[in-house]
């Protein structure tokens, strides 16, 4: 167990190292940072002095070491556009993105699981066929199009929900939340549905196929033979056994949700990290791009690590061959 966790930790460290290296090479690739900092009329001599002072003449390995040390301490430099420390900007924007991601994950879980159970139990039911067709359409529609359609129906035609922004946010400590005001909750509905819809279809299809699988097993037959009621068999025995992969997938998808928030945040002008990252890409603001990349990688690595360890704890079969534990990418 300890050896397994240590090995996974080492792997995560290597991933983080590679991502940091990629983020660092962004700086090397893209233009001269001095040009971003000074005006046109700055002389060559002053530029050279500034270059020396910022350590840009050092060998790249020294520069990378400095970059990594600063990144570990949460210092990603100063944004080219905003002329403010990147860390401040990200900390300001993070609550909006995390709230949106969490609510969409919960939405997809609490709607997706019942739909999956229903379609698994009534395979050929009329409603099941509708659910399956809708889910295929849901997979084919790009996220931004779903957002636009929702805005068109609920904001333009019906005029019941706001189409952009976050509503009124209140500060709880240093965390600005939109969950405590009615305008904040109203503003959250459409983006959360847009972001969660893809995950919802994924979870629904997963639960359905797992249910179909489990219902065929011997212990379900045995439970029926014991004369247990249908609901006890379905929910007490079958559903419980389908939930392990569902929880894993939801955990792994949480990272994707945070990344996909880029698109949803753009459609709804949601003031989160994703919108900032996109503006950074449009304006080639490297410090923000690098910081966002490292942060997202960190989220992914931590979530993957937790899921792997959970798997290891939950599923005793993995303890025989630990190398199979990271085969589900």
């Amino acid at each position, binding site marked *: 167990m300890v050896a397994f966790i240590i090995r996974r930790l080492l792997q995560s460290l290597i*991933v983080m190292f*590679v*991502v940091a290296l990629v983020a660092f090479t*962004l700086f090397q*690739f*893209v*233009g001269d940072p001095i040009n971003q900092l000074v005006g046109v009329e700055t002389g060559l001599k002053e530029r050279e002095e500034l270059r020396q002072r910022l350590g840009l003449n050092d060998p790249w390995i020294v520069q990378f070491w400095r970059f990594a040390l600063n990144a570990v301490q949460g210092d990603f430099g100063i944004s080219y556009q905003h002329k403010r420390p990147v860390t401040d900007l990200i900390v300001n924007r993070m609550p909006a993105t995390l709230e949106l991601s969490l609510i969409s994950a919960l939405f997809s879980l609490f709607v997706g699981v019942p739909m999956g159970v229903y379609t698994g139990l009534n395979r050929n039911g009329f409603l099941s066929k509708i659910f399956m067709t809708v889910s*295929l*359409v849901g*997979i*084919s*529609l*790009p*996220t*931004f*199009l779903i957002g*636009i*359609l929702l*805005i*068109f129906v609920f*904001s*333009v035609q019906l005029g019941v929900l706001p*189409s952009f922004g976050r509503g009124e946010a209140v500060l709880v400590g240093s965390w600005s939340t939109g969950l405590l005001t009615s305008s904040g909750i109203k503003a959250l509905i459409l983006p959360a549905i847009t972001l969660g819809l893809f995950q919802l279809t994924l979870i629904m299809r997963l639960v359905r196929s797992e249910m179909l699988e489990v219902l065929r097993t011997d212990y379900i037959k045995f439970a029926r033979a014991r004369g247990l009621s249908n609901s006890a068999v379905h929910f007490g025995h079958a559903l419980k056994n389908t939930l392990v992969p569902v929880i894993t997938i939801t955990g792994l998808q949480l*990272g*994707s949700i945070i*990344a*996909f928030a*880029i*698109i949803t945040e*753009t459609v709804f002008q949601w003031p989160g990290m994703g919108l900032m*990252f*996109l503006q*950074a*890409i*449009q304006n*080639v603001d*490297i410090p923000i*791009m690098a910081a966002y*990349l490292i942060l*997202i*990688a960190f989220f*992914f690595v931590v979530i*993957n690590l937790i899921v792997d360890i959970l798997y290891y704890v939950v599923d005793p079969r993995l303890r025989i061959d630990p190398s199979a534990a990271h085969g589900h*990418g």
Partner: protein
Amino acid sequence: MWLIRACASIQARHMGMADMKSPAPAPSTLQRMRDSDIWYSFKQSPITIAAAVVTVTFFLCALLAPWLAPHDPFDLVSMDIMDSFLAPAWSIDGDPRFLLGTDDQGRDVLSAIMHGSRVSLFIGFASVLLALLLGVGLGLWSGFVGGRLDAFIMRVAEIQLSFPTILIALLVNGVLRGALQIEQQVHLAYVVLILSIGISGWVQYARTVRGSTMVERNKEYVQAARVIGIHPWLIMLRHILPNVTGPVLVIATIHLAVAIISEATLSFLGVGVPPTEPSLGTLIRIGNDFLFSGEWWITIFPGAALAILVLAVNLLGDWLRDALNPKLR
């Protein structure tokens, strides 16, 4: 793929046999196609036929857009600002000249969609081709050589796979655009898009091809080829490659749908095709600004076109996967 190859080899054999005055004529290519399993399963599935018809229609419209489209959306002379914001032809203030209405500059929406699908499909195909070449090449090499190289390529693939495709595409896009000058960015927008979508999609191909290569590598015909001293590169390309390309066609079809969505998403986010030569995503982005003032057709029609195209390609991919899977017969 295998079908065409089989036909070609049969034909070659047939011609060779004709020299030897063989009495039994082999069936013609057309005959063989009509008798094949694939054609049978195609005929059995009405949804697949519908999807194929839709896809072919889109391809034709895209290919022949300059001749089929009722108006030329790039010809500034033929556009009249007085024609701007006309509703679709069937509504009260519509104009019979413009079936699906016009946009803010008086461009015919139907013609813009036809030219837009041309751009979308071109970029989609080109990025699939790039990902395919990259993935099949690396997978073949990795599986054939094995050892350190294999471990390295597969680790890279695993790291890339743990991030969502769209995030990788956005990142590659940001780096490439950063490395270019502003005026180059417009000229090379296609290249940047193809590179970013292609690079973000190679992993699927590589993993599949590597797996089958590792199986083929130890088979007798490869050993025989080694024994008679054929160069390893030739063994890889002439002997193993034809035997591992089966699943690639299925991956490529599904990847085409993903690539079209990615292109539309990037263009919608404003880091894709410039508005001067719009793709479907760019059209949706342009139209999105007018959604609130009631001109819904500018964005909803391109959106519907995108959704239908992607759905059709997805359905074809699903069918192909099942039809080529011998276990499901």
